[in-house]
């Protein structure tokens, strides 16, 4: 067939372990990419999806080697090609768009020059034609005023703009195949939706085939025609995008879709047990066996083959897929959260503002901070005992800054933070007594960074126990074992180092460490965003369970609105360090809402091809909050007039107790947002 552009045949890639064993990263992959189609490769970290994408352009990472099979592009095997011949194909025929464009662009060369370099390599245009082509390309990726952008350096652009430049550079060689490795992962929700929309447009406009690699089913759902699901180095499911997302017939994909929190459902989704095995562990049988709800003895002993089902146009690697064929759409069951928050307030933030501005000499002497336009301003939130309040917003919205101030890592400029109605916590670490520090504990985003790599799990959890309660010997050990059991880890984890644990296990250890202090408030800073989707739900469920057992209050920071929806009782939306909307989560996720909340909700990507993101506002990035008026004036699509630029909008209450800060009357907002 001529319409097949890339043919992967029996491809196996792996490495040799210290003991001399051959460990496979990719196991016998066979697939075809057709002309003009967009294929999504989805899988958790370590499933081999990036290795496969790189192999498609004839590249095998250092340390890995090809064990068997081939990647055919125009009927020549890329993996056996000489580097001179590969150079002619890379960029010209196959182009790659990396995850982090900020790192992929040379920092000291102007954008225009970098695109020009790509054009010189991959086209035969002369100088004047190239100049025209540069602005044409920048126009195509919808960058405003291409002429000025071309003269800028990469650091002068925002993350979304950098990613657009990377797309423009990839298009410079008019490639037949575009490989995209997690191109939107580091971007804000609204920017992500815009970039995906652009990619969709380019796929249609140029007829380029695309291979889109991502862990995010939501992003994959928006762009791809066909989806390949990878697990542990194997293709477990391959088929048309809609069928896979609506009626997955592989237990892994089925479970995965069930465990993703969705905007339309409040409550925690079911979690999948365990985590993906490390490469080389599975010796025989199905690699998903441990975690599967449909497994039987056959799965334990025999590895299933990838089977093509003609009537469904789908390939599946499972013995028991028939049980899923007849099932209807993925029905998600959620554990509704019981709101057990008491009326007693545990933490009050009043008029809190925080500044990162450098102190001047005079201010240093008087020990004060003077900054007319601080990063975070006017934060008034009363947090009730036992509730989960979520702070949401894009990067730079000040949500983590507020957490740091509550924890005492950052001094507040003005305002009061009060614990339990009486204890003043508006000070930093040095001024707080140990008990003030004990009552507030932090859980961080990335467990790789928050656990000391040179400490065993035992030493990690022992730290707060020793510090706050002075435990020693047997008593200390008993407490550690207790805590490990609470986070569903066995006693034998005590002697392990963090590097020997999976991401989910590490985060559990971090949770155990936080609870070891018997805190009243736990600050969760993006606790699930570094985790794989299938593990995320389990950690959320664990946090919820612990909260119910201990009556802890959570302050939950996240950029992921669906996760927030699943776990929180109340939500506070922040933009540029100012509150936009505070209310019970059920109401915040319903209209009417603040125009910024509307933008955020519209941009959420759901793993459903029928739900398209609504792009309400431009994805401009603002560096500083405006001096006067509403914080969202720069991007608001519902701006009323001069009043938005001059006056700080008033708080308005809806009937359900949702507070919105906008100049537009609530009734009017309701009408506009239907």
């Amino acid at each position: 067939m001529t319409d097949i552009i890339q043919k992967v045949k029996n491809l196996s890639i792996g490495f040799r372990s210290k003991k001399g064993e051959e460990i496979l990263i990719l196991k016998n992959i066979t697939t075809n990419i057709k002309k003009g189609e967009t294929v999504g490769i989805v899988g958790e970290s370590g499933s081999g999806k990036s290795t496969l994408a790189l192999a498609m352009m004839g590249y095998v990472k250092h340390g890995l080697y090809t064990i068997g099979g081939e990647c055919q592009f125009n009927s020549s095997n890329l993996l056996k090609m000489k580097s001179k011949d590969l150079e002619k194909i890379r960029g010209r025929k196959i182009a790659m768009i990396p995850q982090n464009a900020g790192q992929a662009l040379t920092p000291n060369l102007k954008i225009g020059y970098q695109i020009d370099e790509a054009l010189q390599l991959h086209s035969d245009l002369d100088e004047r034609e190239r100049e025209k082509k540069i602005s044409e390309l920048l126009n195509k990726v919808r960058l405003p005023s291409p002429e000025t952008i071309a003269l800028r350096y990469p650091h002068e652009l925002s993350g979304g703009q950098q990613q657009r430049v990377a797309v423009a550079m990839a298009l410079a060689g008019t490639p037949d195949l575009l490989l995209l490795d997690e191109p939107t992962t580091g971007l804000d929700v609204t920017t992500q939706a815009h970039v995906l929309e652009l990619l969709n447009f380019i796929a249609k406009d140029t007829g380029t085939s695309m291979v889109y690699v991502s862990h995010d089913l939501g992003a994959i759902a928006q762009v791809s025609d066909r989806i390949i699901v990878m697990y542990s180095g194997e293709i477990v499911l391959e088929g048309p995008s809609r069928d896979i997302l609506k009626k997955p017939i592989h237990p892994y994909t089925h479970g995965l879709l069930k465990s993703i929190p969705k905007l339309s459902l409040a409550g925690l989704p079911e979690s999948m047990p365990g985590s993906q095995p490390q490469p080389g562990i599975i010796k025989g049988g199905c690699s998903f066996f441990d975690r599967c709800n449909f497994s039987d003895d056959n799965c334990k002993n025999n590895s299933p083959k990838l089977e093509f089902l003609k009537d469904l146009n789908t390939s599946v690697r499972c013995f028991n897929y028939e049980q899923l064929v007849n099932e209807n759409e993925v029905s998600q069951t959620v554990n509704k959260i019981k709101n057990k928050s008491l009326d007693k307030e545990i933490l009050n933030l009043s008029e809190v503002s925080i500044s990162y501005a450098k102190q001047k000499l005079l201010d240093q002497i008087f020990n004060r901070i003077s900054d007319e336009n601080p990063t975070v301003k006017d934060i008034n939130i009363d947090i009730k005992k036992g509730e989960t309040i979520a702070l949401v917003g894009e990067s730079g919205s000040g949500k983590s800054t507020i957490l740091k101030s509550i924890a005492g890592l950052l001094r507040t400029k003005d305002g009061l933070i009060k614990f339990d109605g009486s204890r003043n916590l508006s000070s930093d670490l040095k001024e707080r007594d140990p008990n003030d520090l004990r009552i507030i504990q932090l859980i961080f985003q990335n467990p790789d960074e928050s656990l000391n790599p040179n400490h065993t799990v035992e030493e990690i959890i022992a730290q707060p126990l020793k510090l706050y309660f002075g435990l020693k010997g047997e008593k200390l050990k008993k407490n550690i074992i207790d805590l490990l059991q609470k986070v569903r880890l066995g006693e034998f984890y005590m002697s392990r180092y963090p590097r020997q644990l999976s991401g989910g296990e590490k985060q559990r250890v971090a949770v155990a460490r936080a609870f070891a202090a018997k805190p009243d408030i736990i600050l969760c800073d993006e606790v699930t965003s570094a985790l794989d989707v299938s593990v995320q739900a389990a950690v959320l469920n664990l946090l919820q369970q612990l909260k119910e057992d201990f009556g802890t209050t959570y302050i939950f920071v996240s950029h992921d609105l669906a996760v927030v929806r699943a776990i929180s009782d109340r939500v506070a939306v922040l933009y540029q360090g100012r509150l936009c909307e505070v209310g019970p989560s059920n109401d915040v996720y319903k209209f009417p809402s603040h125009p910024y909340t509307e933008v955020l909700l519209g941009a959420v990507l759901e793993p459903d091809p029928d739900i398209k993101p609504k792009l309400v506002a431009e994805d401009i990035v603002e560096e500083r909050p405006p001096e006067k008026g509403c914080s969202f004036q720069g991007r608001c699509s519902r701006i009323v007039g001069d009043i938005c630029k001059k006056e700080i909008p008033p708080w308005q209450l809806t009937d359900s107790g949702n507070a919105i800060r906008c100049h537009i009357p609530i009734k009017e907002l309701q009408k506009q947002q239907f």
Partner: protein
Amino acid sequence: MKVDNIYKEEKKSAFAKLSEIIITMASRPSGLIGLSILVFHIILAFTSPYIAPHDFKAIDPTLMLQAPSAEYWFGTDDLGRDVFTRTILGGRTALTITFFGSLIALLWGGLLGIFCGLVGGKIDDVVMRIVDAFLSIPWILAMLLIVSLLGTSTEVLIPALGFFYGKGIVRVARAATHDVIAKDFIVSARARGHSNFSIIWNEIIPNVRDAILVEGAMRWSWMLLGFSSLSFLGFGVSPPTPDWGLMISNARGLMSFAYWAVIAPIVGLSSLIIGINLTADAFAKALGIDRSTKAPV
């Protein structure tokens, strides 16, 4: 899980860790060569007084500048002393003084660097400028000054060398600390309210220890060269104690007709330096630190 976990490893004792590191080091040819040379020199330093065939200070005018023979393996020097005896004894002082010197350098340089890295701010600024000022003084001039004021006894040389070679370690330790303190586990320890001492001891040192140890090993070889230079200039070991630097200095004028008297100590000194260097490199590789990307400051 029922599958056998190849990633499972239990906490090891310090001895088991060390022996594993040494085995890894010896598995590379360069590491094996370096280790063998170093071990050879250390054994020699311990045993040489007992195996030396002659008296190192026995002067015999009748035996002046004899070529190597069965009796005098490396020949004799201008005072008729046995060069072989003096060569195998000549490393003892240098090795001992520089070993303890580098320990002192490691200790003060490492701790000060970690402290500055953690505390930051004004204290860091002031301390680092002082360190920079000392770095700009040619060490040999400063050493000559100290030695001429306080004498050349071991009690002077060890701390003086330790001080001058520790300045560089301050910078390395500070940079390594900066890599670590940005991590969340330090933030977490701070938020819990641990003291600075506890943070340095429990959180930072385990993570910067390897980098500082490797740096210290490199400093050792530099210090050896520096100490030998002092001896060469006549400010190190006082005669008649045998020392390579001193021997090279004495014999260099006679190089044209009595090359053996100068070659033996040169081989001794350079092989030890090469040995330490190769060992330090292999040590770094065994710990997973790539020295090729992290040049010493």
